[in-house]
């Protein structure tokens, strides 16, 4: 009796685990369970609804031979890469500019931040008007007298993917700015003062002290931005509908079309698995090095 711990103590000890348990179960079922389910589905010839006739790697072979899949995965690389890069560059530049004791900072910040509040459906619709050659920016500039001005990316198969980048950057760069601004405010002021007393110039202070200390912010911003890039689906639907042709298709749209509209659920599942595989390949090394680097 004496060496047995009271039940309440044991309960208290395992409380953290108990609290985490529901989330753990949910995660294992609704994220990893569903991923496994999708993986299994990708090896079947499921058409309209899930059916469990296994066909090996057939769906993956079909996917690799599919022209539209090639276009959409290529688009994701271009779109994702440019979107993340431009957002980071704009975000950090604007944050630094805004951190110079600006009057009306709160007002400007709200303007930069508000696009994040808007759904991609609304963003897509608004930019569809602005980018439309006969209504939007092209026409406005021509009305000002520059009749040779051309800005027709939205209807140009080669350039349309950059329209997606424009709209997505418009939406998310303000948020990245806010992240970096918050990071800048957290930098140790003593260190900056000390460096300035030592005669370091402003650019040097930024390069040597401030930017390196923002590394965790880069990490958070990267995770959030890549999350947005991979899930970009509504934007394509609202802005381009995947067109002209299927030149602005992204993998999420490809998967949706095949799994739901075209009764090729097996192929859709295979493309979903390829997307997850891609995320895994890019993200895991990064997450690993970041999380490890922190511990040391």
């Amino acid at each position, binding site marked *: 009796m004496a060496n047995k711990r009271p039940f309440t103590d044991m309960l*208290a000890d395992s*409380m*953290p685990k108990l*609290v*985490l348990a529901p*989330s753990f179960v949910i*995660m294992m079922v*609704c*994220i990893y369970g*569903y*991923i496994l389910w999708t993986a299994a589905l990708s090896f079947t010839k499921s058409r309209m609804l899930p059916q469990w006739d296994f066909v090996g790697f057939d769906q993956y072979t079909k996917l690799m031979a599919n022209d539209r899949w090639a276009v959409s995965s290529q688009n994701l690389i271009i779109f994702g890469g440019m979107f993340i890069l431009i957002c980071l560059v704009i975000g950090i530049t604007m944050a630094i*500019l805004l951190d110079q004791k*600006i009057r009306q900072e*709160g007002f*400007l*910040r*709200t*303007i*930069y*931040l*508000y696009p994040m*509040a*808007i*759904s991609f*459906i*609304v963003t897509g*619709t*608004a930019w569809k*008007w*602005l980018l439309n050659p006969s209504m*939007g920016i092209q*026409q*406005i500039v021509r*009305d000002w007298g520059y009749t040779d001005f051309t800005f027709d990316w939205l209807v140009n198969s080669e350039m349309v993917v950059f329209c997606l980048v424009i709209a997505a950057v*418009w939406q998310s760069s*303000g948020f990245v700015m*806010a992240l970096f601004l*918050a*990071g800048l405010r957290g930098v140790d002021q003593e260190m*900056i003062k000390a460096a*300035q007393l030592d005669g370091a110039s*402003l650019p040097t202070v930024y390069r040597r002290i401030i930017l390196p200390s923002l590394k*965790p*912010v880069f*990490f*958070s911003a990267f*995770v959030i931005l890549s*999350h947005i890039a*991979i*899930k970009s689906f509504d934007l394509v639907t609202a802005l381009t509908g995947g067109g002209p042709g299927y030149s602005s298709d992204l*993998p999420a749209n490809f*998967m949706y079309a095949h799994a739901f509209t075209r009764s090729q*659920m097996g192929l*859709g599942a295979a493309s979903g698995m390829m997307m*997850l595989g891609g*995320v*895994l390949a890019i*993200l895991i090394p990064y*997450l690993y090095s970041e*999380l490890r680097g922190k511990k040391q």
Partner: protein
Amino acid sequence: MIYTQKTSPIQKLLRVALYAVLIFMAAIYLLPLVVMILNSLKDVEEIRSGNLLALPQDPSLAAWSKAWSSACTGSTCDGIAPFFFNSFKIVIPAVIISTLLGAMNGYVLAMWRFKGSELFFGLLLFGCFIPFQVVLIPMAMTLGWLGLASSASGLILVHVIYGMAFTTLFFRNYYVGLPRELISAAKIDGAGFFLIFWRIVLPLSPPIIVVTVIWQFTQVWNDFLFGVVFSGVDNLPVTVALNNLVNTSFGGKEYNVDMAAALLAALPTILVYVFAGKYFVRGLSAGAVKGA
């Protein structure tokens, strides 16, 4: 903030350039909103014949009132107003529950680490990246099995589940930055798990609660895919109504009504950013972005 003492003419010039750049950027960010507001105040003929940036000759709120209460969203023509209530009915519980869950999870992951808790966090982080299109069918099967198909509760559950990863991330990163001594002292004093959370951690949490609530509110309010699939006919959110409205036309597209409806649908989230944006950045500074 960088402190500079003397101001030379060059520095003054730089200041002017700085403001010019900031204002120019603000103009670009505002452009789509301005275009939408301007054109929502025009009539259809003026939009067709005129410049998108031209000021309305005879500003009228007719398009706004039509979008709100009489535009067609299918075979019913009551505008998007009835759907606002549906959206709130879903957003409010979903935000509250997922924030609470995130706070508890973050608290454990930051302050009560155990063997495997880091692995759990890593798995959850990766879970953020699951494309939502993948989960539709298995989720529908699960909800059917739970008896929650086509109900507001089912949709709330879905939003809580897929919002959990981000809310947990926010709270964990914030709590990691809190001083350790606070907690260890309380532990030595014999305070339990919930007491520490309630007495010490929660009172320090408002900044991150603001960030999480804003983030979740925006995500859930703006969702279309889950809303249309899981809500059932009686709980369709405003995004679905907006989608129907902009796809409806009677002998010509009413751009002004479309734009007014889009603005109305976006209004709650924009207001949240405008009024709580200050706390948002403050909350982020307070630690949400430190570490990962």
